[in-house]
């Protein structure tokens, strides 16, 4: 068998070479930065990768993406990237999976717990904050990149270490939903958002810097741990900024119950789920949904009943327009939408109990909070489904 990595192994050593083969990596975002990073990882022998992206390939992506071709336009970024990487992979048994979906709404956060390293190649602060927060919760090493014009920022945090800072120390405590949401609280189409100016060399530089730091981390020599590296392309200058944990960072103050993994999936009927957990922990449990779920709404103009059956974070502001009378009279979710945020065995809308968990917005690998109301103090359990 060909030894593709003979020269590389002389640089990284045999221990690190073994870690490269076995470590599982979650890469979120398969845009320009994600393409460059993934290409580097696969050429270095990483083969256990999960790639998530909700976007489709557009014309403007091709000038910055090594994994996409003209014939890929309109296809899923994550799925095409995974397909192309399997062709390029030098790993003897590559397990490269693409997931077409949004990391916040379409995949449960349990996915973070199933990987050794998380790399964030997204372009929104909201997604960065979400990924950071779950990496802190699961204590996963977390690499982050960002770039615009000729400038690159990368950072690395290892929340498994005592008093380690996180990305929140840089980006702050907000939930960052406002930029992509209207005043109704619902999201707006990305077409109305401005894209930042960027160029291939910036994304290539980001991909090189993060891949280098990942290798150094596996060697035990990470030099950017708890630091942010800024590269200014115009004058080739680099700054390294130390990040300290802020006493005000609430992410580190969160006290969460231990996570219990259940061999159940989101295809289970909701009432069977309650029978199972009520019996298992001998209590009456109330399930807090990961996101509020909108069942129906009615138009205040013509009275038409509109069925949503979606998470509130998946509903666009323009969906408030009545498809029948086109009146923009709905007051949004405040008044005339039927929204559920909790489910239990006594819920009035019995159709919910007959639905599958997937039908009330629960994703694969979701983490569900159960509150046992017969215990004193209230028993709170976090469970993860498959």
């Amino acid at each position, binding site marked *: 068998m060909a030894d593709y990595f003979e020269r590389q192994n002389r640089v990284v050593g045999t221990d690190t070479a073994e870690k490269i083969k076995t470590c599982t990596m979650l890469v979120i975002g398969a845009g320009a930065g994600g393409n460059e990073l993934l290409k580097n990882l696969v050429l270095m022998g990483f083969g256990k990768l999960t790639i998530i992206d909700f976007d489709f390939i557009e014309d403007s992506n091709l000038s910055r993406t090594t994994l996409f071709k003209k014939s890929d336009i309109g296809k899923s970024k994550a799925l095409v990237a995974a397909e192309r990487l399997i062709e390029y992979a030098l790993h003897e048994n590559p397990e490269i999976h693409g997931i077409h979906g949004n990391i916040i709404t379409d995949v449960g956060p349990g996915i973070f717990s199933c990987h050794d390293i998380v790399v964030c190649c997204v372009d929104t602060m909201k997604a960065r904050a*979400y990924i950071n927060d779950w990496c802190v919760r699961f204590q996963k090493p977390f690499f982050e990149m960002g770039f615009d014009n000729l400038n690159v920022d990368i950072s690395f945090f290892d929340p498994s270490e005592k008093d380690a800072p996180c990305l929140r120390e840089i980006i702050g405590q*907000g939930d960052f939903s406002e930029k992509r949401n209207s005043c109704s609280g619902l999201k707006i189409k990305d077409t109305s958002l401005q894209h930042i100016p960027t160029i291939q060399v910036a994304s290539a530089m980001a991909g090189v810097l993060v891949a280098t730091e990942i290798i150094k981390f596996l060697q035990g020599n990470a030099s950017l741990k708890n630091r942010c590296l800024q590269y200014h392309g115009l004058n080739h200058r680099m700054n390294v900024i130390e990040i300290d944990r802020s006493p005000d960072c609430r992410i580190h103050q*969160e006290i969460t119950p231990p996570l219990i993994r259940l061999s159940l999936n989101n295809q289970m009927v909701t009432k069977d789920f309650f029978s199972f957990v009520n019996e298992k922990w001998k209590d009456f449990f109330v399930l*807090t949904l990961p996101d509020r779920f909108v069942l129906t709404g009615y138009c205040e103009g013509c009275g038409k009943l509109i069925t949503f059956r979606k998470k509130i974070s998946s509903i666009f502001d323009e969906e408030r327009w009545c498809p029948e009378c086109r009146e923009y009279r709905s*007051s949004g979710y405040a*008044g005339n939408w039927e929204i559920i945020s909790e489910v239990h065995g*006594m819920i009035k809308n019995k159709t919910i109990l007959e639905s599958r968990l997937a039908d009330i917005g629960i994703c694969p690998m979701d983490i569900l909070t159960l*509150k046992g109301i017969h215990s004193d103090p209230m028993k709170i359990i976090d469970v993860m489904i498959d």
Partner: protein
Amino acid sequence: MPSNQNLYEIRLREEFKMMRRLQNDSDVRGVLQIFFTDRLSQNQFGIGHETESQLYPEQYQVNVKMPVYTDVNVLNKNWEGGLSVKVNYSVLMNPGSNNPPETKLDVSNALPFNHHISPTWLCIGGIWSVAKDFGLWYFILGCCSLVNQEAAWMDDSGSGHLQPLAYRFWKIDRHKQRVNNINWPFDLRARSEGKDNQQPVKLKIKIGIKQTSNIPKIKIIRK
């Protein structure tokens, strides 16, 4: 985001206590009537009622009763409206978020002549950005102050917003005055719990009536 549901439940419990204190405050007792929706049964109860489980409410209904202008120089002395307010985890537990509670004002009785109110919309503006540091009770008082057209809460940018004529009437004819002289308890936490906020009772002395014996007699001695 990972959530701290334990802390959330504690916060809801404390909000509930403050809503009870608000209801008991003598300054608003005749103006506001507060109800909550039980999380388990979805039944509505008066705020004095106990919750049906350890789950404290996320949703409140506040019936507001006070004179309100409904047109130019038309004061509806029996105006009643229903303010519905609902919180969730991200609203109550994320101080960095600007997402306000879900809020709706039922104006089916009569539409207030107020440029922050339309038949389907109550524009709460920046009330939550202030109220989130205090609690839901403060938010409710802010919304009621808005109905009462109190200058501190009203947009005065000149746009007229949801009802331009109402804006002109409030600004020019009524000189930005509030409708009712209500002493909202914005210092609710500083007020004593469960007691009426009345002025201290002064001892009344009536001339010609014999005083009780425990009042010391003062004898003026002239030298």
